[in-house]
């Protein structure tokens, strides 16, 4: 009898999930959800949170060298936003039944990933501009789409995060504009940054639709609403025009407007490089992970002290 009832409860719960999916209603933390759905979200959301946190490193590399008080304030505020996004996303992911400590352990063991883009170095001041304009610009295209994702806490996090990301993109573009209006050396720095960040930014959308291993489930569960190639095209279309306005050259000789498709055609993306960086062989993979592990280990005594203090005073 009991077994039969259990099965019935399972079936009812599943049908609620299916009905919500069908009606485009958000799935909430207490709702029943298929294991695969939960796992997919934990993987994607924790990766997103880790990306925000690891992404603080390349920009943080320029904080002490920011060339004006205003530039320093803007950069500090921006990195602070990324940190806040990381916190917010860790909390949203915790609603799926995993702790922040577990997520960090998965990052350190290599089980969880972060965005590949942060395995590239920030080599000159214009890189700070390029990261805001191109990297955050690409992230926004993705995140705007994720505002309609099916998991409620994730979708709400995206709504909030998108507002701040558009400020980041504007500040990045402002730096690039200033550099392009500046001295010859500044223009060279800006173009150099453009040359190094353009292709990795395109890779941020992931493999072509025909090669994307997670696309099927993500679409079925409405976690993802637009394909990698659709989103990439959106990004290219808006960014090429912005580059032209300030006189930057997009480092792609095959880039041209396709009147029929109403999109730009672009040259081949170097997927061998993409997979090489994913496999751990990008310029900064080791550096980024070692930094995170080192800082986490060095901070252990502080976390222990806070916990010990709380425990002592709870008893009193």
């Amino acid at each position: 009898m009991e077994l039969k009832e259990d099965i019935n409860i399972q079936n009812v719960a599943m049908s609620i999930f299916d009905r919500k999916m069908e009606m485009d209603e958000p799935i909430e933390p207490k709702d029943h959800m298929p294991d695969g759905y939960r796992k997919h979200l934990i993987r994607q959301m924790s990766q997103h949170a880790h990306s925000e946190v690891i992404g603080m490193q390349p920009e943080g590399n320029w904080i002490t060298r920011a060339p004006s008080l205003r530039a320093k304030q803007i950069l500090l505020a921006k990195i602070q936003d990324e940190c806040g996004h990381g916190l917010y996303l860790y909390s949203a992911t915790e609603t799926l039944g995993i702790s922040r400590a577990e997520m960090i352990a998965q990052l350190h063991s290599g089980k969880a990933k972060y965005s590949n883009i942060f395995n590239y170095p920030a080599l000159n001041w214009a890189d700070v501009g390029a990261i805001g304009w191109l990297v955050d610009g690409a992230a926004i295209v993705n995140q705007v789409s994720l505002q309609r994702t099916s998991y409620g806490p994730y979708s709400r996090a995206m709504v909030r995060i998108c507002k701040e990301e558009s400020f980041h993109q504007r500040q990045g573009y402002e730096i690039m504009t200033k550099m392009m209006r500046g001295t010859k050396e500044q223009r060279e720095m800006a173009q150099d940054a453009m040359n190094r960040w353009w292709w990795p930014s395109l890779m941020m959308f992931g493999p072509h639709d025909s090669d994307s291993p997670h696309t099927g489930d993500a679409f079925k569960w409405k976690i993802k609403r637009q394909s990698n190639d659709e989103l990439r095209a959106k990004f290219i279309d808006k960014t090429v025009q912005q580059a032209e306005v300030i006189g930057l050259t997009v480092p792609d000789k095959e880039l041209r407007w396709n009147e029929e498709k109403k999109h730009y055609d672009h040259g081949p993306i170097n997927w061998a490089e993409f997979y090489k960086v994913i496999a751990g062989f990008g310029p900064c993979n080791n550096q980024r992970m070692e930094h995170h592990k080192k800082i986490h280990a060095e901070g252990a005594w502080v976390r222990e002290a806070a916990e010990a203090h709380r425990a002592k005073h709870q008893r009193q």
Partner: protein
Amino acid sequence: MTEQQALYKYCTQLGDNALIQSYRLAEWCSRAPILEEDLALTNMALDMTGRAQLLLQYAGQLAGKGQTEDDLAYRRSEPEYSNSLIMELPDDDFAFTMVRQLLTSTFEYFLYSALTSSTDKTVAAIAAKAVKEAKYHMAHTTDWVIRLGDGTDESSRRTQQALNKLWPYTEELFETDDAHKMLLAAGIAADVNKIKASWSEHINATRTAAKITMPSDDYQHSGGTRGIHTEYLGHILSEMQYLQRAYPDAKW
């Protein structure tokens, strides 16, 4: 020395204190023991950068040579900087940062509270903003120093060590010079002797709650306000001023 020159000196000193503190705090970005603290430390760094901007901007106006706040921050050399030495010491660990910030923010809270009634309107307006920030900085660091002092054996040892190292740099915060005296008479500057009593009271209460002992008080460093700094300041400036110095014609 005219009153205007004295005020230039005073604002530069306050501005330099904010600027060098902001540099050290910002070094924590992406390095804090928990994300929440990464946010708090960069928040304090942001407050300090903003304060430096306002004070150096005003100093630039007072000097009347068309210097901007960036000219003062990025084109002056070590001897022209007049911050207290305590601001430039490198951070050993999180306990060092929290103890230093407790010592300086408590000082700043009482200082800027007093400066809100400065007869100089610009100083009073800057102080009105700064006092709100300093109040939060003081509360935040007080909590942490108590937590660390009264946490584990290791955190207590580190907190005590930090206070021992920092204590010989505290007296300099209360130093005065001719410019101070002139401005004090005019009701522009704050009376640091009055601030000292409130500062000592808060630091002692926090130290007691944190269960750490008072370091011996027999030697105190001095020199920052006269432009004689530690070796650390040169490294701060060479990093902070790198782009402005390497590309003097560029606008950022």
